Each structure stands twice: as C-alpha cells, then as structure tokens.
C-alpha cells in the first residue's frame, strides 16, 4: 500500500515538474509593430487576401511579359533590297544588312496596294518587312510592303547659343554657338517655328540680344546661309 502511494506520489511529482517547466520556459513572442491576428479566422482571411494579391500580381506580370515578348518577337525591317535568293531577301539600311525569309503564306503588297508575288520584287526596291524574329536574326516575314523610296531629308543641326544681334530688315539673327565659340548667322522665315520653352508660341520680334536659344536647322550647303527650322527661347 505504502509502495503504491509512493509510486503515485512520484508520478504526480514528475507531472507537476513537467507542467511547471512548460509554463516557465514557454517561448515568448517578440512585440511586433504590426499586431498579429489572434484567431484562426483572421489568419484564414489574411491568408486568402494575400493569395488573391499574389494571384493578381502574377496575372499582371504574365500579361506584361507576354506583351514584351510579342513586341520583341514581332519586328519590322525597313530597307532597300540588295539581294534576292529563292526565299530570302537581303535588305540594307543605315544599321547594316538585314535578312528576311519569305514563305508561301507571306503577303507581298506593291506600291499600288495590290498583292504581288515574290518574283515581282526587284533589287533597289524599298520594302517594309513585318514578321516574327527567327533564328540568326532572320525575320520570318508575314507581310512585305513595297514603299516609295524616300528622299533622305538633310540632317538637322542643333545648336545652343546666345543671341548677339537680331536684324528685322533681313530676318536674320546672329548667335554665338556655345560649343564652338563661333558666331553663326541664320535666316528666319515664316515657316520657322519660334517657341518659348516649354510651350508658348513667339514672334520674330520677341527675339532679343543675350537671349539663350536652341536653334534647329538643316545642314546648309557651302556659302549658303542656314535656314532656321525652329528656335526655342530658353528660360
């Protein structure tokens, strides 16, 4: 009887100590600036909102990636035909050479908007080839459009300067070019766009000495006065 009592006492003591240890050494959660949800329901709601947001973000990312992919894959080469083989055109533009592969399904449109065959294409034709980028930078053409050759417009020159003089009689201005420290005389015509940055329109009479300007003009031929395309008055 005493033995049984002893055993019971021992078991109760062990249980007591175990429970005491659990209480004393229970992990303490750190204080968080964002209070953690207390109940399981709150946990479930928060989890579903997070999942929804993740799904939303994933869908958005997917859509954007497919848009970018389409933009990268679908390309257009513009250039003059310099070589024609059975099914490949070699075009040339200021970037260099571009190769275009024609398929039976490729639609070819002439300058008169009528559909033509690949054999109707000729060297020196200027074309716009649209399609999908294949291997080795060869464009798999879906549509090729023959365009009228464009006359290259003369290159624009952009200068930053300070007005030295304005001549209303001759419609000319003289300005000092900031870059080269040279004096440039330029002709202003009715077609010349004169603007106060950023947006308001000005007249020739608004131009004065010491104003800071940006002048856009095509490169002039030798011994010719450059004609201003645009003059921007800067703040």
């Amino acid at each position, binding site marked *: 009887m005493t033995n049984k009592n002893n055993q019971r006492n021992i078991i109760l003591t062990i249980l007591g100590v175990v429970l005491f240890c659990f209480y004393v050494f229970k992990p303490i959660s750190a204080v968080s600036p964002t209070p953690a949800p207390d109940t399981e329901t709150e946990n479930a709601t928060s989890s579903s909102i997070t999942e929804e947001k993740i799904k939303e973000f994933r869908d958005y990312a997917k859509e954007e990636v497919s848009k970018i992919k389409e933009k990268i894959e679908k390309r257009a080469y513009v250039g003059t035909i310099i070589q024609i083989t059975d099914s490949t055109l070699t075009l040339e533009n200021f970037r260099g050479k571009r190769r275009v592969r024609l398929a039976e399904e490729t639609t070819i449109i002439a300058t008169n908007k009528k559909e033509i065959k690949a054999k109707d294409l000729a060297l020196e034709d200027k074309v716009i080839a649209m399609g999908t980028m294949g291997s080795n930078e060869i464009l798999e053409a879906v549509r090729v459009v023959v365009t009228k050759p464009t006359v290259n417009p003369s290159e624009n020159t952009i200068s930053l300067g300070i007005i030295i003089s304005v001549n209303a009689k001759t419609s000319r201005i003289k300005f000092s070019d900031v870059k080269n420290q040279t004096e440039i005389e330029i002709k202003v015509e009715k077609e010349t766009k004169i603007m106060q940055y950023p947006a308001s329109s000005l007249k020739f009479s608004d131009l004065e000495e010491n104003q800071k300007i940006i002048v856009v003009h095509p490169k002039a031929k030798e011994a010719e006065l450059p004609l201003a*395309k645009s003059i921007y008055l800067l703040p």
Partner: protein
Amino acid sequence: MKKEVLLAIIIGFGIGLVATFGLYSARKTIGGSYQIYSPVPEGKNEQVANLPIDLSLSLSSPLDESISKDPKTKVSGSTSPSTWVVIFSEKEEKLMKSDEKGQFETEVALISGENEIEVTALSESGNTIKKIITVVYSTVEI
C-alpha cells in the same frame, strides 16, 4: 522516499526542458518560412548619384525596328540630369528637359508605315548625342 522524489524532480525537469526546446525550435523554423524578402535591394537609387556626368543617351521605348498598332508611341529613356532633349518624328518636333535623374518621357504621333524617330540630347556646353529608332505603324495583324 526523499531520494526517489529528488530523482523524479530532476527527471521531470529534464523532460520539460527537452520538450520546451523542441517546441521552440519547431516554431522558429515554421515562422522563418513566412519571411518575405524584398526583390529590390535597399539603397539602389543612391547609385544614380554616382553616374558619370558625361553626356549619355539610352532609349527604353519604343524598341528599334518594332511594330506599333497605335497611332502614337511613348518615347522614353535616360540621359544626363537636366539635359535638353530634342525629338523629331515624322509628324512633329519636341523639346523637353530630362529630370534630375536624367529620365525623360513623351508621346509622339506616328504616320502609317515607316516612322524614323530621332532623339538628340544637348548638354549645357552644347555637346550633342543622337539616336535614331524605326517604328512601323501598322494595324494589320502580324
């Protein structure tokens, strides 16, 4: 009796310690898996200040030799901070200034077919840098 009780206390204390440590470890492991790491490293923007001050120009939109289904396209890119940027398209000419980070963005109208867009950055010292991109405006499904 006293000896047995003492032994029981020591054993119980040991079991309690082991169990508590186990629970603590398990909780720590589970808690760690919920940590979300930011994909953008902090302080990355500070690198902008370390960029060289020489005139530079890079275009992020539109892609060169790309096709647009819209009659207008966004022209954006970056250059040196507070630099003049002149944009010529087939239809218009625009002057703008890049922001303090060198970013610029505008929209230009396109004509049907080939569009050459010329972007020139112009520094206060009059230096220029130019880039040309070609965009084809076509509504035909490719």
